[in-house]
């Protein structure tokens, strides 16, 4: 029974592979959290970072990360949704569609540093937006757009054709069918995909080095006028995000507690990504249950 023995061995190897991977990943997460959690405290999260003294926090960086994420999503979600809808619903199998598909693919596999360089060239220098939230968000848009397009297309593709036909057969136009039937049906999938992509945007750093900058001006969190220079909402100010902060501290920091800051920031980053993930699952499940009437 050699085939049986081969079977045993091969399956064991597969299990081992899975174990190695799980172990690696668990060790990674464990390492980050073990070293980082002790560094996290309320004051770490709510204090300004210090340029040369110990005990700086990450308030601004955290805010910047979320703000850039929000701005990026503001650009990518509508564009990506429409692009996904185009590819899934409107695209005829012709040369143009093929070309658009290739374009999405190209965008998806661009090295983020190339995107950063492009951002530096166009947004920072050509449009003169300097190192700013806007430049950073636009660079990340280039980077995230294909992800959203792909997610949307996949989610729409998994909506049964019958639903579309159902709408059209009721004398509803294609656009309205898509808007009111197909997209809502695909919504859990799209939303989950968007939130998961948020994790990657949140942690991106290379593209931001050249576009959002390595510093944050003094922010006045009581000033919410987006046109004011000290306002946290000003999209034209430079903004160091959390992951850039890790890089920055590690590269050029002269504070004595570099290691603590880096550890703490890494853990906060990972916890945020974890949070996105759990949130995505919860929301997806909730909507799914609502749509299928199991709730």
């Amino acid at each position, binding site marked *: 029974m050699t085939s049986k023995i081969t079977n045993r061995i091969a399956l064991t190897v597969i299990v081992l592979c899975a174990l190695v991977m799980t172990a690696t990943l668990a060790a990674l997460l464990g390492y980050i959290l073990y070293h980082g959690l002790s560094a996290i405290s309320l004051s770490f999260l709510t204090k300004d970072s210090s*340029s*040369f003294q110990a005990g700086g926090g990450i308030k601004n960086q955290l805010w910047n990360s979320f703000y850039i994420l929000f701005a990026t999503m503001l650009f990518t979600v509508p564009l990506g949704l429409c692009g996904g809808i185009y590819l899934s619903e409107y695209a005829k199998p012709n040369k143009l569609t093929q070309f658009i598909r290739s374009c999405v693919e190209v965008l998806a596999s661009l090295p983020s540093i190339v995107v950063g360089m492009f951002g530096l060239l166009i947004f920072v*220098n050509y449009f*003169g937006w*300097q*190192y700013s939230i806007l430049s950073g968000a636009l660079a990340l848009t280039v980077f995230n757009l294909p992800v959203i397009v792909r997610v949307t297309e996949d989610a729409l593709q998994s909506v049964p054709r019958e639903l579309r036909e159902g709408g059209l057969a009721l004398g509803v136009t294609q656009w309205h069918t898509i808007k009111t039937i197909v997209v809502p049906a695909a919504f859990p999938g799209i939303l989950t995909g968007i939130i998961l992509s948020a994790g990657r945007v949140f942690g991106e750093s290379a593209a931001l080095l050249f576009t959002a*900058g*390595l*510093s944050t*001006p*003094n922010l006045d969190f009581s000033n919410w006028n987006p046109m004011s*220079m*000290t306002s946290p909402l000003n999209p034209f*100010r*430079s903004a160091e995000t959390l992951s850039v902060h890790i890089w*920055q501290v*590690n*590269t*050029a*920091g*002269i504070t*004595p507690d*570099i290691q603590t800051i880096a550890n703490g920031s890494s853990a906060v980053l990972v916890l945020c990504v974890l949070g996105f993930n759990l949130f995505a699952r919860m929301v997806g499940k909730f909507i799914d249950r609502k749509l299928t009437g199991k709730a």
Partner: protein
Amino acid sequence: GSKDTSPGQTNTDTKKEELSGKIVIGGSTALQPLAAAAAAEFMKEHPQVQIEVQGGGSGAGLSEVSNGNFDIGMSDVFAESKSNIDASQLKDYKVAVVGMTAAVNKDAGIKKLSKEDLIKVFTGKVKNWSEVGGKDVKITLVNRPDGSGTRATFDEFALDKQTPAEGITQDSSNTVKKIVNETPGAIGYLALSYFNDDSVVKLAIDGTDATEDNVASGKFPVWAYEHMYTKGDPKPVVKAFIDYMMADPVQSNIVPAQGYLSVTKMQVERDAEGKLTNK
């Protein structure tokens, strides 16, 4: 950059309360913390002034100030040393001095070297510390990248403009220090402010210890200015900030706190060609 300076308010009256406007500073990451700390203090005194301190590197600082995007470009090299920058347009303010020396791993058993030996080590002519009087440990070079001010200074004044041989290159003084500390036989170079513990050996060159006093007196040659450049004459608000940088509170508090030497203490002066003159 300075597009939203409100006109009319920057009159020549020296009353500080009436200063207002926006200043964009950017460039050298080495100088960035110093500028940021000074800017924070300055803004406390002048709430109407907004100063944005960006990084980007010395190169970006020089390019952007030349293009008019930055009000102040920070650089740790002379603008003259960059071939495509029109230095004549720029006005130089030397706001601090930074001394540097080689950092050596303890296992090398080396505390001082002659310049000659140092050059041999860095150009790869010598591969083992025993050849220059140390222990039998292999030499590992740790460099800073092209264009780095620290590298440029070290190459020019410690290595007499010789190009170092290839080794590990790190863009971070922290990492350089870490590597030198951890890797047996490693040697790199750091600003003096990084020698704040005894994890690496602070190398004496040609019998001169790398101390602040020796730098100030001109005995120890490896040092550089930290520059702030403006394009032509600065606007009043920018001028006010630069004056503030050069004035005593900053020079005697923030500058040393960040590990720099105050320019006021320097007994010697250096020009863009590297010519040393007594003050």
